[in-house]
Structure formats: C-alpha cells, structure tokens
C-alpha cells in the first residue's frame, strides 16, 4: 500500500491511498484502502489520514474516520489520536500503520510493525525519510 496526506498553502487537506491488497486474495476481496473512513479520510476541521496494514481490522475500526473523531470530540492531537487508534488495532491483534497531518501542518507517522516506509517534508524545510522503527 502507498499513501499521501497533504496540507496545501490554502489550508486545505487531502488524503489518498492506493494498493494491490494482500497476496493470494480470493473472492474479490478488498481491504480498507478504497474505503472512505477506513483507510482514507480527510476533513479540514481536523486532519487527513492514510492507512496501511491488515485491512479487515482497519475496516472494523473505521480507523481513519476514528482518528479524526478523536481529534474533534476528545481534543487529542494528531499523534495522540493515531496512537490511540493503533492501541485499538493492537487489542484486535491487527497490524499496520498510519500517516496523518492536521490543519496546522503537524504530522503523525505511527505503526505497530517492524517498519513502515515513510517520510515528510514541510514549509520550514524539515524533512525525514525512514523505514525501520526508532529511526
């Protein structure tokens, strides 16, 4: 799976996700990637989110929409909301990760696996690209 979330210079957010799914899938199985609210969600009031991982769990959690809801109703920041949602994923024994950006440009790149291909760049010139945990 690949994904991208953006805050543009006009203050608008957008999220996108694209994938091939899981190897050996049958019966026209789809995961969370094409499902708005599960693998992808954006709302200028809160954040833009793109997920990657074992799709069935992200669908059951309505993961991406829930991150936004945690920010809107529980006043969590983007990192706290993504971590809270990953805790729910852990409880279900699901695996994967999430990237997010809020409407101020703050970011999250959280995962419960050994690594996630990830990176960000912003207007301040800050830039990070990483693969493994603790990088």
């Amino acid at each position, binding site marked *: 799976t690949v994904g991208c979330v953006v805050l543009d210079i006009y203050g608008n957010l957008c999220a996108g996700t694209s994938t091939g799914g899981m190897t050996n899938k049958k019966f026209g199985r789809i995961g969370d990637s094409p499902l708005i609210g599960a693998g992808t969600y954006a709302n200028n009031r809160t954040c833009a989110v793109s997920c990657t991982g074992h799709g069935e769990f992200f669908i059951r959690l309505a993961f991406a929409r829930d991150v936004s809801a945690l920010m809107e109703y529980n006043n969590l920041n983007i990192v706290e909301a993504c971590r809270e949602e990953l805790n729910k994923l852990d409880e279900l024994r699901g695996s994967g990760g999430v990237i997010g950006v809020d409407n101020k440009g703050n970011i999250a790149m959280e995962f419960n696996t050994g690594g996630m*291909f990830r990176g960000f760049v912003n207007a301040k010139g800050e830039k990070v*690209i990483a693969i493994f945990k603790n990088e």
Partner: protein
Amino acid sequence: QQNFTVVVHGGAGVMSKDKMNNVQQQQYLSKLNEALLLGEKMAKEGSTATDIVVKVINVLEDSPLFNAGKGAVFTHNGKIELDASIMDGESLNAGAVAGARHIRNPITAAREVMQNSDHVLLSGKGASEFARQQGLKMVSNRYFRTPKRHKSLKELKKKERTRNAGDNIG
C-alpha cells in the same frame, strides 16, 4: 513562506535491517525522496492538496518497489487487482475504485470518480469502463506483474497446499 506539509507512506510490515540490504534500503529511500521532492515542488508552486496527493502517489504506483500499481501483489487467480481512494478535506467529497485490473494509476481514477461522477466507489469492470470514458491510461494486467510478487504467490500457494498458510497478510 506559506505553510504546507506533505507526508507519504509506502506500506508497513515485517521489516528488519537484517533482511533488507543497503542497496535495497537506498532504493526505497530514493523513491520516497523523489515523491517528497515532487510534493514539495508542487506545494511551493501553489498546487492544491488534491493534485499533490495524486501526483505523489503516481510516483509510488509507477515504481515496482511498492504494493500499488506496477509491482502490486497477485490474487489467488494470478491476476492483479488494484484499489484506491481519495478524500478532499474542504468539500468532504470522496472517490474510490476497487478491484481494478486495467487502470494504470488507480489513484487518478479515484480522483475522477470524486470529481466527475455522482458516486463514491466504483468497482471491477465498471471502474475500468468509467476510467476509459474519462480518458485515463489503460494497460494490460501484465503491466503490473513483477517476478518478485509472482514468486511470493507461488510460495504462498505452496504453503496452502501443505496446510501451513497463515502468513498471507498484505
């Protein structure tokens, strides 16, 4: 300098430095960097968030390194079926395609669904038909194939035959 932020991912999973050599690591880092450089350039030039998301994901879809577009994984039947979605945070409009076999860049098709249809999610042959109508680039399913992914399918099927499956998580 006006505020902007671009964040990308290329998938999460079982990864360790032991299993990925330096050359492989550099390939992934280089492609992620290419995607971010494009996103940064577009943002500075005033592109919209939606345009940036689509073009940045196109870079990753066109790379055989990631499980999207070229290099995506195989289904049980030896085909490659692609899914994508996009959502605009200002309008809350959204678009998606699922089970697409011939759309070269599924995220571009998702944007077409969002911007040029009354629907949110199109699937299978209908998604391809719509993409074709919108003038998107269509390809043979073989375009998406890579030897690495074909090998993964063969190995999983072999494990299935020995009733030892259980690690086929995408």
